């Protein structure tokens, strides 16, 4: 677009924009910044590999401004980092540009954005890669941009490469899109984390010898520590002991929501200002703001707290469990110390995270057989099917089916397409084969990453240097600040014994609820009237119930599962803990009944009997098994599980008075929901479920 001779004039203009934006008249571009801008402004492609905080945003914001002044259409930025988009909006403002984002948390603004696009009032439009899958992206977004997109910004460009540390399916489309874009288009691809192999791969994908700006990834402010505290009680105790001593505020990373709750509740009980970070977007937004404003000491987050979260004065990042790879660790821990002189990264891990990592790995990709099942169902119908409709026909998890459809629909040509509200097979569906070697390769990469993470955990040398080497940073140097450089002995990290005990006590007394289902996962699960409508009528619903503990808690939960498997009845210790919970939480119930056991099993009736005796309740056997159906654990999705439960029981004796309904293990909850509905249909005024142990489906 611009010829070289006016580039130097442009540089002056650009420098002025930079100075205005940062509010300092002596500001100059960093190495590589202007070079990248110049590439984009002249309609070329450029790859920017720089750590967060280096100023990638400034590159594409200034490039956008210069191109807009030459009459180009708005820039389109694709980024999975919604949090970053908010910062981007501000950065654009500082350059008198209008940035707008279309993400799942601002639907209400979309109509306005369409209008602004139509009147060319948007300079930078930001979308998540998932948006590409929606046909409205074409009809409502692309078609509104009259001048055509002026510049394409691909954030997290390492995802274009299969060798990248995170696999985001939608980036396969971005990879193809940028390949199909005719020559002479301005494309800026950015990433903060990529090793040589990934950089080369992305470079190749983007079109060969495109220029790369690459800088050092080291963060000098960061002091890294590896803590060998496998027991969850010790880790909790450590947090309670050390967080109050750490300056400023920080983030604790956990792998599951369950752990987020556990850690946050524990810290709160220790008078530490902590909150669990997940849930809906609005809530998350609120929590992010609270942390930004230092209203919180610590946010306990799953990886949902995305990479875009940028708090300059974040002083510590603690990992309660290990992340999937060293690169992930670098990214997450690198969120601390961006704008402060001293910051801390603590890595802890437990026995459970290995299991969780394996689970994620095993379930990362569907098998050919699973794909065939889904495609065959679709191939066979005219029109298409929704996921719940598919769930009705095949015994696979809904999330699994969704994943299969998503992956398959991203193939090109695609064997299945989401069209007008349903998944439809295309001519490619028959005989479709997923590229096994590619999946195998990805699996190997993930395994290698896991290995590397373990090496990092066991590493005796400088931790920062390890991270730098893993990311092919050219300037590897001992940091002199990390736990290993300073030769801190492990005993130093050992928490106080009384806090460990307190943590144990805390873990034992946490309330776990059984949330009554409000809807069946499909209609017409059986002939029974409780299944007449998809919504479970309020008069058939159970009350909120209680569970004694969770599976795999390193404590009572493990023990209960073991006893369930190996003994004929539960130990006195388990039974009395259960009785204590019911005594504490339930009153005004005079009757107790139980889920009829499978043949030959006596655990549940004996447990119910013990509770009835101890609490002076009337024990009645209300239901028996019909013998129809299979074991609930063999069912893979809610429809199959609910349908399996739907015909499993028959009520032999009805009871009108409010009744406690006992089960030992609760997983999906459909057994309790169904039996409660049947009891209530037969006249019971209230049914309160109670169980020994709760296991989530992934466990």
């Amino acid at each position, binding site marked *: 677009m611009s010829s070289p001779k006016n580039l130097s004039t442009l540089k002056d203009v650009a420098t002025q924009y930079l100075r205005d934006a940062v509010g300092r008249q002596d500001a100059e571009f960093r190495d590589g910044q202007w070079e990248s801008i110049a590439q984009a402004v002249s309609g070329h492609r450029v790859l920017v590999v720089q750590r967060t905080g280096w100023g990638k945003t400034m590159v594409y914001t200034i490039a956008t401004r210069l191109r807009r002044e030459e009459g180009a259409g708005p820039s389109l930025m694709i980024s999975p980092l919604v949090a970053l988009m908010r910062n981007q909006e501000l950065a654009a403002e500082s350059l008198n540009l209008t940035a707008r984002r279309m993400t799942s948390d601002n639907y209400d603004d979309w109509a306005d954005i369409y209008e602004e696009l139509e009147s060319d009032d948007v300079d930078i439009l930001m979308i998540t890669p998932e948006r590409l899958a929606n*046909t409205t992206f074409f009809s409502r977004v692309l078609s*509104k941009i009259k001048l*055509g997109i002026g510049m394409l910004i691909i954030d997290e460009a390492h995802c274009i490469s299969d060798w990248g540390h995170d696999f985001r399916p939608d980036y396969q489309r971005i990879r193809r899109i940028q390949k199909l*874009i005719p020559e002479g288009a301005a494309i800026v691809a950015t990433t903060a984390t990529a090793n040589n192999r990934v950089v080369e791969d992305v470079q190749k994908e983007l079109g060969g010898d495109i220029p790369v700006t690459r800088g050092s990834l080291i963060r000098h402010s960061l002091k890294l520590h590896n803590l060998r505290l496998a027991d969850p009680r010790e880790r909790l105790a450590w947090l309670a002991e050390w967080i109050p001593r750490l300056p400023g505020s920080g983030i604790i990373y956990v792998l599951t929501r369950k752990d987020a709750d556990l850690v946050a509740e524990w810290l709160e009980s220790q008078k530490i200002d902590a909150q669990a970070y997940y849930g809906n977007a609005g809530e998350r937004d609120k929590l992010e703001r609270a942390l930004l404003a230092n209203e919180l000491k610590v946010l306990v987050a799953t990886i949902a707290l995305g990479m875009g979260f940028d708090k300059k004065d974040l002083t510590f990042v603690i990992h309660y469990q290990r992340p999937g790879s060293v690169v992930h660790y670098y990214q997450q821990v690198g969120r601390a110390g961006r704008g402060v002189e001293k910051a801390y990264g603590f890595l802890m891990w437990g026995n459970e995270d290995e299991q969780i990592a394996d689970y994620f790995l095993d379930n990362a990709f569907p098998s050919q057989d699973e794909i065939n099942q889904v495609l065959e169902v679709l191939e066979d*119908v005219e029109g298409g099917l929704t996921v719940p*409709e598919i769930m009705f026909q095949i015994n696979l998890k809904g999330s699994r089916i969704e994943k299969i459809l998503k992956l398959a629909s991203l193939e090109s040509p695609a064997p299945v397409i989401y069209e007008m509200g*349903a998944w439809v097979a*295309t*001519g490619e569906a028959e005989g479709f084969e997923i590229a096994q070697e590619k999946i195998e390769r990805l699996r190997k990469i993930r395994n290698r990453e896991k290995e590397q993470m373990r090496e990092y955990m066991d590493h005796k040398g400088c931790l920062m240097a390890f991270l730098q080497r893993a990311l092919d940073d050219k300037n590897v140097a001992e940091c002199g600040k990390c736990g290993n450089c300073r030769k801190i002995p492990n005993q130093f990290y050992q928490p106080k014994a009384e806090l460990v005990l307190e943590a144990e006590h805390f873990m034992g007394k946490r309330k776990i609820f059984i949330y009554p289902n409000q809807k069946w996962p499909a209609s017409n699960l059986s002939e029974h009237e409780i299944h007449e409508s998809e919504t479970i009528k309020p008069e058939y619903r159970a009350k909120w119930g209680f569970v004694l503990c969770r599976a795999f808690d390193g404590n009572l939960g493990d023990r209960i599962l073991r006893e369930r498997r190996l003994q004929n009845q539960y130990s006195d210790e388990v039974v009395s803990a259960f009785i204590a919970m019911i005594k504490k939480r339930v009153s005004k119930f005079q009757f107790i009944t139980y889920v009829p056991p499978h043949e030959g099993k006596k655990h549940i009736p004996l447990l119910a009997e013990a509770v009835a005796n101890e609490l002076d309740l009337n024990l009645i056997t209300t239901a028996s098994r019909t013998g129809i159906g299979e074991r609930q654990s063999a069912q893979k999705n809610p429809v199959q599980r609910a349908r399996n439960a739907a015909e499993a029981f028959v009520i032999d004796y009805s009871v009108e008075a409010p009744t406690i309904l006992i089960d030992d293990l609760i997983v999906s909850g459909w057994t309790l929901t169904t039996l409660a509905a049947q009891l209530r249909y037969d006249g019971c005024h209230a049914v309160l479920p109670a169980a020994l142990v709760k296991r989530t489906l992934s466990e």
Partner: protein
Amino acid sequence: MIWPLSDDTNTVLLLCAWLGGEDVYLPLEIREYNTLEQWLFQNGYRTGNLIQQSCAEAAAQATGLGSDRLTALLSRSITLGFYLEEWQRKDYWIIGRGDVHYPERVRQFLQESAPPVLFGMGDRQLLDQSATAVIGPDQVMESANQHAREIAELCARHDRTAIAAGKQTLSAAVVESGLLSGGSVIWVIQGPVFGESLRKLFRRAKAAGKFLMLSGRSPADRRPLPQEPEVGRIAVALCDSVMYVDGTELSGDRYCVEDAVYSVLEQRNCFVRSFGQATAAAERLTHGGANPCIEVEMAIHEELFEDRAEIIQGELLEDDHPDHEIEPAYLEIPAPSKDLASIEETEEEDCETEEMAIVEEQAASGSGKLQQEGIQLDLFEQIPGNDRKDEEGVNTGSSKKEGADDSDNSSRESSEEYGIQGSLF
């Protein structure tokens, strides 16, 4: 290799393709594009050279197309990339007029009115095989539809591709009957073909390499049907012989099929079949030299597809013809359903109307889905008057037709093979 597209085809797309929402700078009309192409050719450029600013400016200047407009159209390249990926994923192929893959017959027959870009789906080898266009106006009687079905079926039996044009009951009959009989079908329409391809019968036929859909318009083009769509002309260009199925006197002709057939009377063997009184259109075609078909005499139609050995000998007379036992293969196949129904020629494939939003919602919630199994996809409108009693066709006499000069198609063996030169009656 169609993907990735050549620079030339990419540039033609930037210049000519509607990507939806254009209002300030409109994509080039064919005639404008022709002017530009001519200028480029004369000055030793390829279309792809327009990416260079100097070339684009000179071209804009010389052709009077306006520099702003050309620049604006050419700057749609990122936007185009998004569309291309979507189309590629939906298994479209895209061929520019300058592309070696562009069907030679369309290029030669339509010449400068040949669409600058063709968008299609399905096995492109079908474009090179012998084919019979079974086409007609918008409204025909049920007996005419039946006739069209039988022809399509005969095509299937004789390994000859049936070509249908536009979206109306007649073409539906041809497409469905042809595919159900196991034959190959080319369907020329105006607008997006992807939505159509999802029907079970169609997607299976496409997978088997037996179904090809073709349009001269970008799938993102939502404009209404133009005054003179090239659908009919592309259909006759691609075929070796034409069966014009006459409609009712009141019938419209949205796809300009009559004119298309008229223009090809010299080059293709054309037959006209009327039901009841021949319409003015049919009269015009027969006076121009098309062969009137008298009744649904299958034996005669079979001649359309006879082996070369028999026909090439020359002027077979009707009487000379061996009696063919007609094996109504189609009777074993479920008759095409009545509710092959209605979509107006529509641009709605991707467009989100309010209703669609509702459908999407319903579908998402699992309570409703678009098409239930067993219910035929409503594709074509039932035209009022279809249920009128079929009148016996009137014999307008048969005439011999001298062989058309098929030099146009000398590169293809099909025209020889099927001996269309010979008179059939």
